[in-house]
């Protein structure tokens, strides 16, 4: 999965470099894809984009609903996600239990709503950690170059020579199963993707005239990076982060599925699937609905990621 993404980001990088044109001196910014619609105010671009990309909007709305469901899980369902109700065991989906109940009589909808908390926490925080670490590494390598760059990038290469999910399994296995450890493991396996992206962007940005100008003014590295380079890195990072969010959700649920992530009784989608696996003959809906929840959430994140990329970078459309 991550290879495809690094390939995709590689393609994006190539396109970006070809298109990095600095505009008039007063703007002093690389317009990441804004070239086509110079002068059109953002508000109108947003409205036009929403009209044309109903599918992205659907994804965004679904993601929003997942967040709402996770935050207000306690208010949205009368059932407890953990307390067993033994006379309600394995009820088929009905009005009272839209997704049915599991072998302990727990309402599946309630468990899915509460389960959204751990998956959202795991995916968002692991992407954030990877993003921050990757930005530091990529900026350092791209800006100062030289030996530091070579060493950092070789380390990233080594990390990329594991299938990411395997690296995550290895790390969480060595740290011990648990939510926080799985967050760290996923974050660690995603660092090289961000580091490489940021490095490639920094390489281009550092060669821009306005950066040369800032350097010749005697600006400190810190000032140049924060003031001139960092703001222009944000759009590609956002696009990458959304794509990685989808991947982080599937990795987190995979780790939970094999029992290395969130530990019971905390409800979680991946764990619900592995618990329900033995019920495929009697109650196939038990593993079905949590998996549907994962699929739709990952799908939404992918749709939003695609939409954001099209929006921030219209020339990449149809990619």
């Amino acid at each position, binding site marked *: *999965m*991550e*290879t*495809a993404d*690094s*390939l995709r980001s590689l393609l994006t990088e190539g396109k970006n470099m070809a298109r990095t044109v600095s505009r008039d001196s007063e703007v002093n910014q690389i317009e990441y894809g804004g070239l086509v619609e110079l002068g059109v105010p953002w508000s109108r671009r947003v409205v036009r984009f929403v009209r044309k990309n109903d599918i992205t909007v659907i994804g965004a709305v679904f993601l929003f609903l997942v967040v709402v469901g996770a935050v207000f899980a306690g208010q949205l369902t009368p059932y407890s996600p953990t307390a067993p109700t033994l006379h309600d065991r394995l009820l088929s989906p009905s009005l009272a239990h839209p997704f049915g109940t599991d072998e302990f009589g727990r309402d599946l909808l309630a468990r899915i709503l509460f389960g959204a908390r751990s998956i959202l926490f795991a995916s968002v925080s692991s992407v954030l950690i990877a993003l921050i670490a990757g930005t530091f590494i990529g900026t350092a390598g791209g800006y100062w170059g030289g030996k530091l760059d070579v060493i950092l990038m070789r380390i990233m*290469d*080594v990390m990329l*020579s*594991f*299938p*990411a*999910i*395997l690296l995550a*399994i*290895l*790390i969480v*296995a*060595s*740290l*011990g199963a648990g939510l926080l450890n799985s967050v760290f493991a996923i974050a660690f396996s995603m660092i090289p993707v961000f580091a490489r992206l940021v490095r490639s962007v920094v390489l281009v940005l550092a060669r821009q005239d306005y950066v040369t100008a800032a350097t010749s003014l005697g600006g400190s590295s810190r000032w140049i990076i924060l003031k001139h380079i960092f703001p222009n890195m944000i759009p590609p990072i956002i696009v990458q982060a959304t794509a990685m969010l*989808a991947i982080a959700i*599937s990795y987190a*649920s*995979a780790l939970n*599925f*094999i029992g290395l992530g969130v530990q019971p009784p905390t409800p979680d989608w*991946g764990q619900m*699937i*592995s618990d*329900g*696996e033995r019920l*495929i*003959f009697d109650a*196939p809906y038990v*593993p*079905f609905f949590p*998996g549907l929840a*994962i*699929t*739709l959430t*990952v*799908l939404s994140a*992918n*749709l939003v990621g*695609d939409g954001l990329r099209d929006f921030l970078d219209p020339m990449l459309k*149809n*990619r």
Partner: protein
Amino acid sequence: MTKYLISRLIWLPIVLWAVASLTFLALRLVPGTPIDFVASQNLTTAQITEYKAEWGLNQPLWFQYLSFLSDLARGHLGNSMSSAVPVKTLLIDRIPPTMELAVSAMIISTIVGMGAGIISSTTNSKLVDYSARIFSILGLSVPWFWIAIVLIIIFSVKLGWMPVGGQLDPGTNYKTITHFIVLDAILTGDWSLLRIAVRHLALPALAVGLTSAGFVARLTRSAMLEVLRTDYVRTARAKGLVERKVVIKHALRNAILPVLTLQGLQFGSLLGGAVITELVFSWPGMGRLLLDGVTQRDYPVVQAAVIFIAFIYVLANLIVDLLYHLVDPRLRAG
């Protein structure tokens, strides 16, 4: 080209060394040792000490590391700490099923993905294009283990067409030659064995292949769209060539390069997917071996399994890179 080849080949053992070291360290990052697992079986202190001495766990870490590296360099993989079976035997048993699964998944993903990509890039119907695109984005959003369960529910439980799991029907008469069942069946001309093997292979391969089919479809579509816009395609059309010929001979041939690259690069993640999907299908491959090794902290097994997968991964990337250089003359000059 030669210079490039040499630099890549030098890089290979360095990567493997780094991977091996990372694996070694990761497993020993936390105080828990294999003895904790064994100790739950009520051993006396003397027995624990003896166990530690036997496996070299009483040695300082740097010594363990060096002996691990020198063993690895000589191809000594040691014995499993939990079952005392030589790791080499375990790997010979477990690698072929996983490879069989990953390769079939790759074939499925190439056929399905490229098919969907070509259809969606050449069709005039918006509906067809949309369906193909939704299929591809859905494909890359579905978790392996879940689609695996859904496939079992549909094809094994409800329809009863496919076996629920395993690599062969229980009681199947089978003597291994190459350890690859499908290959053995073809070599010996045993068609009923082949039928059984393929029936067992179909669902897991589909489960692993669909995810990457999504990526392939997307990339094929975009590559095709790009090529179909070029002048030589317009010329081909202007010559009066049949559209089918334009698409296959002129467009696809040029669009196929990035797709093949992606497939090469994806082989590693297919292996990762296979490792997890195997658990659902009780597939006797690396997945079970690795996860059991991980929970039992069976150092030699986990190390060997991880290093092997990383090796295949790095090798696949290298081959893709070299092929790319061979195929694309523009890269050769540079």
